[in-house]
């Protein structure tokens, strides 16, 4: 497989923790927001936005840019953090999350926020929208690609599978989906609420190329993304096993941290932990 230098892997791993710190800060300041699902996606979003996808904050409308769809829109805080670090807007603006008049809405809004490709919030839309984008690229003979991040509760929605069928029908090698497989949803573990296993088998039978990885291992993420790009004749899915709330010990694996703002005490404990992990990663 492709050889990513250790320095790059280290840099990106550290950056993921910077994003986590921003997420905690943002949600604490706003008094609401989705921490659990933002934390589980931090490495994935970092790998995509800071390395794998071709995007340019100075040209948000660059026609040949790669498109990232945050279909699990409640992870908006980690997307916003990434966009701020990339320079689409200032880090200070992150404090305005969910405030009146803010450009940073509770869920991604393509009309208000620079760098957001598509509005999301209610779940299930990203794959079919990704299909449409991938078809548009193909019609234009363009080389840009589409990457969609979905949640594991989200894939309970029927329209996800409508999109999956269509992607296979149209042989969309330029479409990659990543499942942030943190095994938790709002009401409890996915296995209890509505089991989705055998998940790899499902995607395979729908005609997708499947790869399972540790979603917090930066090297595995980078390699899986490169590999997905090589697959030309069908869409690819990466099942990224993650931990909801990853990075803060008392949040990890806890479904109640899906959408709960931390208390002052929880906030400072979380920040200490994250800073330590970032500096000692």
């Amino acid at each position, binding site marked *: 497989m492709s050889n990513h230098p250790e320095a790059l892997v280290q840099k990106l791993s550290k950056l993921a923790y910077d994003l986590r710190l921003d997420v905690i800060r943002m949600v604490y300041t706003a008094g609401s927001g989705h921490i659990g699902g933002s934390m589980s996606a931090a490495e994935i979003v970092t790998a995509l936005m800071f390395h794998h996808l071709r995007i340019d904050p100075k040209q948000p409308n660059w026609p040949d840019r790669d498109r990232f769809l945050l279909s699990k829109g409640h992870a908006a805080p980690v997307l916003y953090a990434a966009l701020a670090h990339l320079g689409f807007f200032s880090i200070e603006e992150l404090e305005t999350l969910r405030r009146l008049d803010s450009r940073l809405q509770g869920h991604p809004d393509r009309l208000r926020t620079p760098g957001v490709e598509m509005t999301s919030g209610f779940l299930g839309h990203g794959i079919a929208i990704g*299909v449409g984008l991938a078809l548009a690229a193909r*019609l234009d003979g363009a080389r840009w690609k589409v990457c969609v991040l979905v949640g594991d509760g989200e894939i309970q929605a029927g329209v996800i599978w409508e999109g999956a069928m269509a992607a296979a029908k*149209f042989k969309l090698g330029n479409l990659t989906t990543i499942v942030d497989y943190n095994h938790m949803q709002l009401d409890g573990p996915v296995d209890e609420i509505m089991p989705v296993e055998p998940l790899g088998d499902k995607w395979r039978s729908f005609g997708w190329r499947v790869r399972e990885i540790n979603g917090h291992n930066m090297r595995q993420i980078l390699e899986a993304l490169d590999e997905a790009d090589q697959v030309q004749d069908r869409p690819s899915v990466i099942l990224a096993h993650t931990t909801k709330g990853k990075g803060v010990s008392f949040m990890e694996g806890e479904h109640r941290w899906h959408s709960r703002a931390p208390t002052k005490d929880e906030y400072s404990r979380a920040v200490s932990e994250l800073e330590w992990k970032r500096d000692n990663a």
Partner: protein
Amino acid sequence: MRDAYGEALLEYGTINPNMVVLDADISSSTRTSNFGNRFPKRFFNLGIAEAGMVDVAVGLALGGKVPFVNTFASLLTLRAAEQVRTCVAYARTNVKLMGHHAGLSDSFDGPTHHSVFDLSVMRSMPNMTVIVPTDSVEMRKMVLLVAEYDGPVYMRINREEVPILSDERHEVEIGKGVRLLDGDDITIIGTGIMVSRCLEAAEELAARGISARVLEIHTLKPLDDQMVMAAAQETGALVTAEEHSIIGGLGGAVAELTTARYPVPLERVGIGDTFAESGPYPDLLDRYGMGVTNIVEKAASALSRKR
């Protein structure tokens, strides 16, 4: 109207290479198959997956294409309602939603295939333009206008032949009503297939010495406020007529406007708060409150309440 629609898509598709067409397994009924045969690379059949189809269209629009999305009006506006609300209306993507077999026009298939509250659903969505062409001539012009219009559009397509009222010189503008007949005693405002019935009703009223103005409203949203207000102020009584529920469609739009600004007696012709049944199209229209006699009766009723 669907044959003319199929041709209209082909015509526009020939001049704009960015136009794409989507269907959900009914392309032979909607006549989008014509486009599909001529431009196979720009035609996407999603199978029986209407919600997914709308989202695919959204992606195509984000990618710079002009997608025309085709399926039954009630599936488009009910099954795919959240896709339409979130990804078309709220995100303001340039998607053109074509609601086929609208009203009772798929008459024999029965109420599951009818669509009599699609207009109220679409009208209540911000950023949505809602159009009901009166006939095939107008529809063909609308396809071009809708394609070139920047923003979400919902347009009804009738399954059957509709009386032709317009000629080629008829100028069509999105949002502009058309005054078909002058009159002073009352105004009858119609949309779609009901427009020709409104004209028939006006003739009957004329025979009784009543001078009825007839307006054709093809754009329910944005409504031609000026034309409707002028009618309220100048004639003092209104009747609306649509192939749709009396809840929330054209009647609703006119009621919302006039009760706020210039209340006059208003009667709404349409299907009541009920589902219809299987049967021949004209019979269903007559049985479910959309006959010419219904328009005449409602006009008389509105007139009797005029102050």
